[in-house]
């Protein structure tokens, strides 16, 4: 026979000050964990969800990011013209859907005056925009005109970085570039400044492209893609190219790896350490619950309740404490959903702006964590309660 649930729930209410303090303590712990997980969710989803499998990124062999990579223009040209895997615009006779891009993290002041940061600036070609298709939209101003000293700025930079509003001038080395448009584009590009590839190379005094992006033919997926990548890697077919190919999704994933891992390690470390403290608090609360109800436990035992249902009853009480605490923690964490923030991604050494995302997995993780805290905190006190001798327990008042 189980101890009625109402008995458990009422006892939480009777001891409301202890219940409240414990719940708030667990809530604070859970909120911190949920916050870090939401940060990570926002960061990784920005990169990974928007990476495409049908877009290829070519880097110099040995380079791990486009900042490190450098490919000569001749190699780029040969690559774009000769690789049959690259899609053509408007049928097999059309121009390849591939573009050379240069990329540089430039020093810019933050708009809030808190110092300097590194903003990615990308020199693009017409095909760069064509590859993006509808996911690239101008929201203010006009489209980029190739051949002119002008740039378009990602929406997320406008309020974060100095001189990124429509009509402002972005100075690059000795050349001024006018901001003529603001764009939206899913993914990390919204934290970038885009200009004409040719004009950028001149202004930055750089001789080479950093990467080539290309739309792949629809059949280059799965095994076909793997064969394509292996062929470029072994270098026997195209000895002089010396490039390595990534799908855009894989490339973006590799750019987030370090920071995402750091954030995950941080959240695990924090939850273990803070969880330890929260478990101790829950244990204290439950121990005192058992102590103050010793007499009642004696009565339950003499009424014929077995020790195991009594153990379950106290464990359930602790779980309810954890659950309420978890709910409070999630409620505390919810308001940060959507708040935009920025930090430097050390894989690229550039600042990315992204929003906290309190997703269902984040909430699920937080609630599970809270229940685990309740379970761990309740186990020992519940065990104690179940092992009380009825006569001893009855004698206590």
């Amino acid at each position, binding site marked *: 026979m189980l101890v009625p649930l109402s008995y458990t729930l009422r006892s939480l209410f009777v001891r409301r000050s202890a219940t409240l303090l414990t719940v708030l303590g667990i809530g604070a712990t859970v909120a911190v964990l949920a916050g870090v997980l939401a940060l990570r969710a926002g960061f990784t989803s920005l990169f990974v969800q928007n990476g495409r499998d049908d877009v290829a990124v070519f880097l110099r062999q040995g380079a791990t990011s486009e900042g490190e990579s450098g490919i000569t223009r001749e190699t780029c040209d040969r690559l774009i013209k000769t690789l049959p895997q690259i899609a053509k615009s408007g049928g097999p006779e059309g121009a390849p859907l591939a573009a050379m891009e240069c990329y540089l*993290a430039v020093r810019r002041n933050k708009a809030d005056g808190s110092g300097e940061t590194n903003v990615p600036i990308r020199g693009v070609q017409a095909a760069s925009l064509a590859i993006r298709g509808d996911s690239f939209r101008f929201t203010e101003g006009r489209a980029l005109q190739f051949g002119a000293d002008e740039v378009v700025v990602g929406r997320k930079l406008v309020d974060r970085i100095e001189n990124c509003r429509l009509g402002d001038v972005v100075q690059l080395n000795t050349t001024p570039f006018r901001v003529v448009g603001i764009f939206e584009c899913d993914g990390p590009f919204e934290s970038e400044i885009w200009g004409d590839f040719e004009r950028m190379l001149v202004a930055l005094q750089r001789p080479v492209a950093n990467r080539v992006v290309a739309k792949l033919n629809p059949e280059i997926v799965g095994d076909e893609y793997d064969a394509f990548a292996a062929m470029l890697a072994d270098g026997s077919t195209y000895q002089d190219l010396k490039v390595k190919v990534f799908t855009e999704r894989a490339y973006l994933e590799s750019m987030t790896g370090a920071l995402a891992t750091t954030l995950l390690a941080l959240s695990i470390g924090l939850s273990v350490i803070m969880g330890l403290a929260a478990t101790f608090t829950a244990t204290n609360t439950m121990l005192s619950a058992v102590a103050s109800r010793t007499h009642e436990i004696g009565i339950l035992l003499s009424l014929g309740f077995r020790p195991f249902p009594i153990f379950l009853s106290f464990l359930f009480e602790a779980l309810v404490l954890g659950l309420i605490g978890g709910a409070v923690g999630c409620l505390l964490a919810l308001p940060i959903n959507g708040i935009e*923030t920025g930090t430097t991604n050390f894989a690229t050494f550039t600042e990315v702006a992204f929003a906290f995302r309190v997703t269902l997995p984040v909430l699920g993780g937080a609630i599970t964590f809270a229940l685990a805290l309740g379970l761990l905190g309740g186990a020992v006190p519940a065990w104690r309660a179940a092992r009380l001798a009825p006569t001893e327990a009855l004698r206590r008042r």
Partner: protein
Amino acid sequence: MSSFRLVRRYLGKHKVRSGLTIASLVVALFLLCMLRSLVVALDAGVRGAKRDRLVVQSAVSLFVDLPQSYQAKIAAVEGVQTLCKWQWFGGRYGDEDAFFAQFAVDMDQLNDLYPEVSLVEGSWADVAADRRGCLVGRSLAKQFDWKVGQTVPLLATIFPAPDGGAWEFTVRAIYEPTSSAVDGNTMFFHWNYFEETVKASFGEAPGTGTYFLRTAPDADQVAIAASVEQLFENGPQRVSCSTEAEFQAQFVSMVGNVPFFVSAIGGGVLIAIVLACINTMLMAFREQLHDAGILKAVGFTDGSVAGMMLTQSLLLCGIGGFGGIALAKLSEPGLRAALGSMFPGYEVTSETLLLATGLTLAIGLVAGVMPALRARALRVVEALRSVE
């Protein structure tokens, strides 16, 4: 029996509860100290910066190299005493692609520029005598178990070797930084070896990432910086010349809102631990209600009964808090090694210790004040009527 002994007895009566509360406090204060030290570590380079060191870098980007032809022009500026080329190498080491900072530098200038680089093994002459010789920080050598004379192969990400294989360096000396201006997880190697190998790979000499310079003792740094910037106003690459502190601050501001997040996490930890301590003290108060009535009945004043309650809280939090602070300080060398090149300046400063001590006392006061006030207002008859 003195009231302090009574307080100790009360804490000892509920060993499990006191123990768990103390353990939570140890964990919480340790975490708070650690989080603050992480934030402090970000500023390490700025704190160790010297006024007479200036850094010349591209005005455009950290990743734009300056021509080597700039060297002679900068050296000619009046007041410049030491000039050292400095290039980020970005190599990876070993099977796990381990990453740490490596710089190609003018080795003969390095010690003049940074007297803080103090050798603990090998000598400057040993490094100078070996073209592939390198100088590594002690904690780096410890991490990878490198000995003087050992060959260290690095796979280049930016500057591929001519044969596509690894670059090879030989450890000729190990240093220990004497101030936070220098990171103890860095490898320095000869500019000449770097330049010759890059020439063999690319057919042209590499540029310089930054020029570090040290000015004459009585020089006007602002004027020197201005004239260096003036030199290259019209290109080909514009430069900015800043003090070492400004240069380092650039990297601090890059981390953006991280210090704020860390503070928010610390706030969460603090709230949780304060609530836990209040909870414990309220439990203690309920149990000691009857005793408090007896004490008052036998003549203890309201004030001394309240004082005992507060002392209990302070003692409990004091033991736990100082435990956590001690743990943070004791774990400092281990954590510094573990955090390695991510937080090279990890240090539990005396300011952190002081702050944590203040927090500990504050937690003790906050947790003790409510039970103390209730104990003071307690009426003897009511207290005696209550049961444990």
